[in-house]
């Protein structure tokens, strides 16, 4: 929504370990099996270990990014103080990957103010086989490094949406072509001097490199670069550049069956109902199907409820990740972490097995980082969620019966209803959307982070009171939650115990939009 702050660059609250990363790579690969998954890492000490994890996590490409790049829109602290030279990170990455025999299945790319053929040749010798150029390519088409990319005032029309300013763009594709032609030409010159026939022959060949003693500085006398130029002693069976692809194990995915069963819906938009058992080794369920829906039907997906999937059992991680509009997942049982990650539409309903003897609302039904970065759809969870529920949500409507810490962090849109206790630090950095929390012990205010939000007690006269009741009724309908039944039975009293979490900024934007709509109406009638 225009006017609501986004936190940029986004913190990746779905990645707290290398396993999280592997999971994200797997999710993305499911979403689009034809795409190469790339992980970009900042060059710093220890980056080799992370890169090894990335390779093990089945990414197709790892980018080692140097410290002196950075988009003009990024905060000055990031531009100035993040990372180290790409040379250092790249050398470490190459050595680590080769020593662990992980190099052969991943492409290593580097970037960070690469300019000349010399940069490319050195990068190749240190272990890169791909190179990214951003600033220099922009400069060839007229970028003058204004560092105003975030203000929409780029005076040469490179980074702006403003029509008048875009008119000033004087760049031509030929300028970029020219630059890269010269670059390639010079690379050939340098390769000829070295006596190599192709760049592949140069990858990781650090024996061609030596530190130039002539550029020594008194401050550098304690520095030893020799470790950067080490070529790991490995046998011929160990690849030092990428020679094969990654095996993601996608062929074992339950989604293949799902896609087959959903064929009438995918092809002819016919309603289908699919019943399947699920177990916790079925990770990223529904994602490949969603990718197919998006591929065939675009952004709008399918009409609501076209594919109705009814599951029993325990779902693995990333259940319903990147779910597309038109797909409803109904699960009797429970789910793990990352349910509905990046979900774009559809519905996810999860309730405990009918034979469960515990109180639903006192027990976890889904894991951590649920609905992370969701942009649309609905979710109903008849039980508690873990930490970081609905972080960076920008459009989903979700009902849950309790959350862990950091709920609704960095949320920019959507509506979240919590029919129970939240953890601490609720709504930190929340700039948009609404949250409704049933505050039974009147202590919610102490668990909420009030820096960016107002807390308001609900009353029967509120505009959204009726809507709230409807959604809770729908929650009951979907999950048969006893908790929802209780609340609805005593609605008048329960309503006043709800606290509305209303971000300051969101209020300002909504007020402005209402005023603008009013003015427009008057202009038409007046």
């Amino acid at each position: 929504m225009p006017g609501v702050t986004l936190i940029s660059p986004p913190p990746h609250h779905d990645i707290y370990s290398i396993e999280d990363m592997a999971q994200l790579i797997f999710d993305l690969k499911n979403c689009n099996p034809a795409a190469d998954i790339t992980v970009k890492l900042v060059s710093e000490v220890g980056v080799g270990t992370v890169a090894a994890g990335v390779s093990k996590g089945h990414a197709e490409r790892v980018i080692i990014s140097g410290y002196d790049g950075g988009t003009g829109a990024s905060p000055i602290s990031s531009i100035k103080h993040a990372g180290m030279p790409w040379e250092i990170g790249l050398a470490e990455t190459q050595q680590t990957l080769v020593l662990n025999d992980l190099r052969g299945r991943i492409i290593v790319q580097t970037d960070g103010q690469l300019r000349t053929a010399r940069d490319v040749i050195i990068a190749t010798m240190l272990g890169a086989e791909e190179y990214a150029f951003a600033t220099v390519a922009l400069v060839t088409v007229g970028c003058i490094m204004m560092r105003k990319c975030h203000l929409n005032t780029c005076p040469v029309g490179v980074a702006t949406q403003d029509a008048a300013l875009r008119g000033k763009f004087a760049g031509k594709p030929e300028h970029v072509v020219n630059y890269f032609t010269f670059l390639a030409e010079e690379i050939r010159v340098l390769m000829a001097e070295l006596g190599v026939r192709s760049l592949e022959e140069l990858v990781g060949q650090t024996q061609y490199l030596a530190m130039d003693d002539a550029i020594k500085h008194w401050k550098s006398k304690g520095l030893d670069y020799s470790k950067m130029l080490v070529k790991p002693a490995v046998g011929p069976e160990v690849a030092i550049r990428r020679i094969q692809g990654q095996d993601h194990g996608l062929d074992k995915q339950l989604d293949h069956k799902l896609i087959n069963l959903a064929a009438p819906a995918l092809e002819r938009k016919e309603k289908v109902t699919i019943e399947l058992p699920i177990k916790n080794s079925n990770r990223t369920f529904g994602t490949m199907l969603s990718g197919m829906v998006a591929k065939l039907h675009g952004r709008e997906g399918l009409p609501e409820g076209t594919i109705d999937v009814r599951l029993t059992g325990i779902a693995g991680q990333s259940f319903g990740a990147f779910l597309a509009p038109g797909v409803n997942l109904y699960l009797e049982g429970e789910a793990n972490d990352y349910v509905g990650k990046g979900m774009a539409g559809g519905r996810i309903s999860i309730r405990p097995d009918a034979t469960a003897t515990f109180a639903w609302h006192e027990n976890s039904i889904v894991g951590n980082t649920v609905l992370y970065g969701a942009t649309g759809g609905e979710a109903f969870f008849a039980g508690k969620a873990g930490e970081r529920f609905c972080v960076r949500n920008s459009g989903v409507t979700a009902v849950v019966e309790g959350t862990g810490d950091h709920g609704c962090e960095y949320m920019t849109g959507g509506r979240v209803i919590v029919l129970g206790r939240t953890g601490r630090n609720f709504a930190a950095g929340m700039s948009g959307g609404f949250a409704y929390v049933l505050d039974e012990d009147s202590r919610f205010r102490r668990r909420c982070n009030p820096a960016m939000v107002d807390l308001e007690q609900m009353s029967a006269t509120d505009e959204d009171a009726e809507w709230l009741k409807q959604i809770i009724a729908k929650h009951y309908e979907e999950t048969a939650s006893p908790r929802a039944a209780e609340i609805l039975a005593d609605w008048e009293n329960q309503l006043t115990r709800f606290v509305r979490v209303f971000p300051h900024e969101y209020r300002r934007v909504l007020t402005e939009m209402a005023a603008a709509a009013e003015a427009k109406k008057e202009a038409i009638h007046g």
Partner: protein
Amino acid sequence: MGDPRGFMKYSRQDKTIQPVEQRIKNHDEHYNYPTEEEVKTQAARCMDCGVPFCMTGCPLGNLIPEWNDLVYRGQWKQALQALHATNNFPEFTGRVCPAPCEASCVLGINEPQVTIKLHEVSIVNKGFEEGWIVAQPPKSRSGKTVAIIGGGPAGLACAQQLNRAGHKVTVYEKSDRAGGLLMYGIPHYKLRKEKVQRRVDLLAEEGIEFRYSCEVGKDVAFAELKEQYDAVVFASGAEEPRDLPVAGRDLDGIHFAMEFLPQQNRANWGDSDLAVLHPKQQLINAEGKKVIVIGGGDTGSDCIGTSLRQGATSVVNFELLGQPPVERAENNPWPQWSRILRISSSVEELEALGGDVEYEIMTTRFIGSEGKVTGLETVKVDWSTGKPEKVAGSEKIWEADLVLLAMGYLGPRPQAISQAACETDPRSNIKTDAKTRMTSVEGVFAAGDCRRGQSLVVWAISEGREVARCVDEYLTGKPSLLPKVRLETFQY
């Protein structure tokens, strides 16, 4: 950059001089500055670029985006501080600088540039009005002494910097007032002489000693200076004018620009000995005369404006080169100095009064009778081969009874430096070490036009500041605390 979209909202307004018919009537300063509010609006056009090319265009590395913003916010005193941080004499450059900063202004890529020079002069005008600019004598003295030969902008900037570092500075000036070309070269209408004197008085108040009418090499021997002072700085300018050695050159009525211009400047002071700076003590006045000015640069322009104000019956200006393009040529891209047609105030006056600038023209001989010049003969030249080729049949006779030669300067006057026995470069300028600015003689330095050849006031100040830092390091044997001039500036 108070207003990120200012450059899209406002257009450039840079009419800062009076209309021709008003200004041509007298020799007084011809500026007509906009109001404070208008200047603030203009300052809103600065985009505070991530890479401020204006600063690299400026030989002083002026903190342009910073004070543009302060002007926009009306924080004039802070703006003045920021301006003085890199520029000793903004009241001079704010009036007479051709503003290379504006040529490299990022907005200039596709829009009229920011009015940087207008902001500069507005800040310093405000500073003097409010009495913020006062003498800043050093708190303590180092006990070292420095002699500066020449009181032009390079010498004065060097003097102020060294004096602030605590050294005792003496400026040797061969004429009776300090300022060099600022005082006697540039006409009053472009830079009011009281403004030069005001600054010289401030320098004197700060503790700088001035020895007037004291030419080193004539009135005082160089050896004496070398003996007496811990360091000596040449800032004696590039005074040797380029001559036109064609037939009839020795006729009466043919003068170098710098024989002519000082007389009017002295007249504006009310001096009676106007001809004192003329080698033959002749009085020159253009009143009632047909004037031909040879040379289309700044000096030529000053000769035109002065002649018109004196009441010349006609003025014609000759330029050997072709007319520059109105817009940048392909081989002259931003952010280089733009080699485009610039109509100076004087040429604007000339054209308004029916005069003209003749391009691609060469004078082949002077014509005279009874020892006095009555005209000259010219021929058109063709530059298409890269060298001037005379065009056959284009000869023309022009009537003239005053011819002013303004064809540039070759270098320092040799007699001024011969005593010092400094090495010179092939262009007859004083040779110095690029970093230490020291000449081949230990303890003797050089700055300004005598080192780099004829150039701008802003370069003179830049040179003066840089040599001061070098002299300070030489005198103290320690890294100088005086600010370093940003030398990564584009060398056009």
